[in-house]
């Protein structure tokens, strides 16, 4: 998956969808994950990177990552590589 190209993301974690006019905020770790997604990292790589940096086990973070990417999808901010941008 990747974040849609039309979504504006600031370094402070503020996101804006110009298509719908909706604004979002993410916390610092959420911002890190979005950057990793945009850099093309797969889930396994994201899990490895975060678990090296933070006090968290891979199983718990895997669950949180799935939840987070699910919410990105739910808010129509992400798309899968084979999808056209809406």
């Amino acid at each position, binding site marked *: 998956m990747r974040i849609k190209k039309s979504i504006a993301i600031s370094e402070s974690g503020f996101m804006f969808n110009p298509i719908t006019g909706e604004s*979002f905020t*993410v916390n610092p770790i959420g911002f890190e994950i979005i950057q990793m997604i945009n850099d093309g990292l797969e889930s396994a790589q994201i899990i490895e990177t975060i678990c090296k940096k933070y006090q968290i086990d891979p199983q718990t973070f895997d669950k949180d*990552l799935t939840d987070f990417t699910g*919410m990105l999808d739910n808010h129509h901010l992400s798309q899968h590589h084979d999808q056209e941008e809406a």
Partner: protein
Amino acid sequence: MEKLRYERPIIRRLDSEMPNKFGMRTDYRPTTQIDGVPVKSLIDKFGSPLFVISEKVLRSQYRKARKAFTTRYPKVQFAWSYKTNYISAVCNVFHQEGSWAEVVSGFEFQKALGNGVKGSKIIFNGPDKSEEDLEMAIQHNALIHIDHLEELYTLTELAERHNTKPRVAIRVNMDTGVYPMWDRFGFNYENGQAWDALNKILHSGRLELVGLHCHIGTFMLSAQAYAVAAGKLAELAIGVQRKFNHTIKYIDMGGGFTSRNTLKGAYLPGTDTNPSFDDYAEAITTALLNADFSSEFLPTLVLETGRALVDDAGYILGTVISNKRSSKGKRITIVDIGVNLMFTSFWYDHKVTPAQEFTQYTEDTTLNGPLCMNIDVLRESVSLPLLNKGDNIVVHSVGAYNMTQWMQFITLRPAVVMIDNDGNPHIIREKENLNSVNGQERIPNHLDHFEL
């Protein structure tokens, strides 16, 4: 390199179309300690969930209430409401401060006696007093508050049988201008039932009428209702003096004062809106002092306030079990505190704070307990910082009713700890064990064996 503290990732939509007059930021700060004792150490030592009571807050609340009344009225007596919290250590804090006992059952009566309260300083309320209960109360010279005519007749009969004159008051209900009107306790003022009961007592001469009592409601958000009630009881007392030349020694205003909790559905927080002890004291004492009592016959003012004294001294500590999402995408956090322990979660939006540091990020969360029941909801919607599995939370102002109305369901009830004035924690009620439940059970012989 030391790893950084983890916070789970969140994304939150900014809803600008629904402005919040209180601002975006919640005022939550972590509650890392209670009276100087770290929350984590309490959970490590005594387990989770855990009820914690601050002796310091119990005493300061009592002294605050007492001061509010004694600075305004010359004769004041508090009576600790056992039903609000009858753990003996809690009761004894109030007895040490000078409170009598106010009980509503034979069980509570025996508990008060067991705590060392003299029978003559026990007020016996409640609609269900058995003949044995009444005999016990007569034997200990307690103050019996008569709830209905059946009780009055039983008491008269017992007085004859034992050739004694029990000390009694009648419970009076009335319209104080609030809704709902509590008219199930005692005799009604407006329709003449109260006078009917007084006439029966004073003409019979079998009982010694010493007081008048009312219990006008619970969590009363209007202090003025007490002024109305005090005025009506004063009128009855003066009427008794005129008609029978009989002096009513005390007027008991019951309980019902609020704590700092916020009632469900309230728009503003209870800390900002609920009346203070001074508000109640001003209303009640002004009404009594302005009544036509001469100084000689000014009755003692008895107060049975329970919740307002104990609620804010009680906390329950818990632990996060899991985070989930509802079908609609809402955050659900499951903790190990169920509604079976927190009966008052059906009444209040309890304040909940994490017990560890957190960032400014919050999520609208439904806080569920661990029971296998859909009604197990501690907070339907609360803006909480991001909690991880194993994190601890502190629920505030749970000292009233939870430790008397809690249910043993699915699992065993937790320990209760009191932190003394010097910051030392003491277990005041042990955590239950399997024998607490199985010890009461009996298995008939034919059900003793089975093969699977």
